[in-house]
Every structure is written in C-alpha cells, then in structure tokens.
C-alpha cells in the first residue's frame, strides 16, 4: 500500500524532485482518501493533524462570520496542497475546508510526519522548503485580495 502512496506522491507537484527514499519516508504516513461534493473535510478550531495533497477535484477554504455566513477566501485544486497548520503549534485548523466536487487526495498523518521531521532534520528542512513558497504565495494572494483592486473607486 505504501508503494502506491509513494507513487502518487512522487507524481504530485509538491513532492516533485524529492529523492525516492524520502518519498518512501513520507508515504509511510500517507493514506488515500476521497470526499464527495459538498462534504466538509475539516472545521475551524479542530486539531490539525492532517496535511492534504490534492490529486483530483477542488476544495473551498472558508471562514464563517455572524450575519454573513460562510465566505470562501481561496480554492485549491489538483496539484496543490492545504493544511500547512500541521507544521506549527498549536496545530489547529483556522478555516473550514469543503469539497466543491468529488475530490481525491492523499492525507498525511501530521503526528507521524512531525515525528519523522524531528528525527530527520533533512526531511524537515526539505518539507519546509516546499511549504514556505506556498505560504509566501498565499500571503501575497491575501494582500492582493485585501487591496480590493476591483472595488469601485470614485
């Protein structure tokens, strides 16, 4: 089974170029998972012990506010990841994630992954190098959204 996950992970953009032995290490924490359209994958404030590597479908990341309901602030799709909250204590989700269509992913057990990263700092550094550009890109997206560029300006 781990060989199957390793094969899926090695083809994913996030893990591209990672040495096979490192992929195997990560794959030992991995499991394939499916969500049907409309299904919630995680909820804000819950324990963030999963890191999702999307293979198929789209997921909406949402925050709800009283009186306004849920608002989607970002969607992610095949080839992308979500759930980097697994890296930083207190390991809590800060948003809800909902499958927009039938979605296939590899879910990585974050507790397992964190232990492996602590034991092998090269692995930890390699994963950090891959997470960091995503965080920077999402921070940039957030800044652009905050500028509200398309807002009517008199």
């Amino acid at each position, binding site marked *: 089974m781990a060989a199957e996950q390793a094969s899926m992970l090695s083809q994913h953009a996030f893990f591209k170029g990672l040495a096979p032995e490192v992929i195997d290490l990560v794959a030992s924490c991995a499991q394939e998972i499916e969500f049907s359209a409309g299904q919630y994958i995680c909820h804000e404030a819950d324990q963030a012990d999963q890191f999702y590597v999307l293979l198929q479908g*789209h997921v*909406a990341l*949402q925050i709800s506010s009283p009186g*306004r*309901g*849920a*608002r*989607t*602030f*970002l*969607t992610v*799709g095949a080839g992308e990841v979500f759930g980097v909250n697994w890296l930083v204590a207190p390991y809590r989700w800060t948003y809800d994630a*909902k499958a*927009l*269509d039938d979605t296939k992913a590899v879910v990585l057990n974050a507790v397992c992954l964190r232990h492996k990263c602590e034991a092998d700092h090269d692995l930890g550094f390699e994963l950090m190098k891959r997470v960091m550009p995503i965080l920077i890109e999402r921070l940039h*997206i957030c800044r*652009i*959204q905050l*500028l*509200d*560029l*398309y*807002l*009517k*300006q*008199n």
Partner: protein
Amino acid sequence: MSIIAIHKCSPIDTLDMQQMVPKLARVKSYFSDAPDVSTLEVEMADGVPVNYAPGQFNMLTVFGVGEAAISISGAPNGARLIHTIRDVGAVSHALTRLKPGDLLGLRGPFGIGWPIRAAHSKDVLIVAGGLGLAPLRSVLYHVLSHRVKFGVVTLLYGARQPEDILYQSEIAYWRESCEINVALTVDHADVKWPGRVGVVTQLIDQAKFDPQNTLAMVCGPEVMMRFVAAALVEREIDAENIFLSMERNMKCAIGHCGHCQFGPNFLCRDGPVLSYEKLRPLLKVKEL
C-alpha cells in the same frame, strides 16, 4: 544661473480641431451587466459607420455634464458601437442613465489598440481583471471570427465577486464552444459560488501556451497588471510580447493636453496599449 526650458507646444491643425468636435450619436440599446456596470450600444446620428480597432476608445459626451474616455467593447466591424461603462463619476453616472433614443456626443476612435496582426499564428493569452474585460472583448470577438489565424487562445479573468463578472452569458458560450480556453476566479465568494476563489495570477500557472510563441494582452487595475506581467515573464513570455492597456485621465484624446502623460508617452495617442518592454521601467516609478 538657472536655465528655463521652454516646451513648445505643437500647433493644433485643422484635422485636430475636427477631432475635438463631438458628433451626435444615439443610444440604440442598453444592457445592465453587473451592479453599476452597463453596456450601451450607440449609432451615429448621421448613419456613417465608425471603423475602429480592438483596444481603441471613444470620448463620450453627456450634454450638460461632461466628457469621458470609454473603451470600445464590441466587435470591430463598424456595425455596432458598444461601450461598457462603470458608474464611477459624474459623467459615467450620467452615461449609465441614458436610455434608448437618448442623444450623446461622440469623438473617436482614438489611440493605438491591441496588436492583433502580431498575434497571427501565435497562441493568444488574454488576462483581464474586473472591467478590464471590456476592451479585451473586442479582441475575443475578432479572434473568434478569424479563429484559424490564431493558435491556442486562452482567457483568464478575475473579478471581485461572482455577481461582478461581466458578460456572463457570453463567457458561458465561449466555454461551451471550446474555441477558447476560459478560466475564471473571484477574489471572494459566498458558498453558492462553485468556481475558483483567488487572484488571476494563480490562473497563469495552469494555462497552456507556448511561451516562445505567445502574445499576451492584459487589462485591469494597474497593480493587477504589474503582477500579471511579472508572472508571464516568469513563464518565459518575452516582455515585448506582453501588452498592457494603461489608464490615465484622457482629456483631449489627441496628444495635446498632457493629462494622460505617462513618462514619455501620451496614453491617448501613443497608447493606451503599450508593450511591457516599454512600460516596465515606468511602472516602477511610483509618482507616475
């Protein structure tokens, strides 16, 4: 001793004077595209068709209110003069209140539009943000009516929220026709929106085109265009094959008054469409 440079204005000739006088036009039809955004189809009162190129603009006058530069968003065949207008100021507000049969003034077309001929046999990447889709719709109409002359054609469009997406029925039609690839995103949405949420630069990563043989046309808020152009260069499109439609306060529209000056360019005359190669150093100057 100080040296005073005296700028000698070019004389206004008879042709220029003619271009300063609005001709009478009449609203033929009116369509509400989005909250605060309307599309007007106008015809010349004298019945003479107006020929224009995609990306050019007209100066529209509401009598007693004023004049504003509005890009042409229809098919460039002269038969229909279409302008999509956002209600942002006194003139545009008055324009969006016009109804079929109302008279208005029209000068134009003005400016240098999109480099359509240079795009022949190339992949065409159209990136629009917000109302920036309006001047690019002319390009889409042209490309679709001469489809065999172009390679892969892609429209990437970002809007503020789902209800602000322009030309929704046409976009749906373009998507279904499979003549062009279409990807949409919005900055934010409620849970009813089934599409992408994010910014338009994210769509560039997934777009399929041959960077060595692609011509990109970009229109939207300046900040958006800066990041889009940088992302396109990152995808190895040459800066001289990336074109942006710039916006400044157009007044005379014939390169005399200087209101629309952007570095060495008068955007009404030398633009509004200019290559990123030319614009890149100017876009870094915050005061411009």
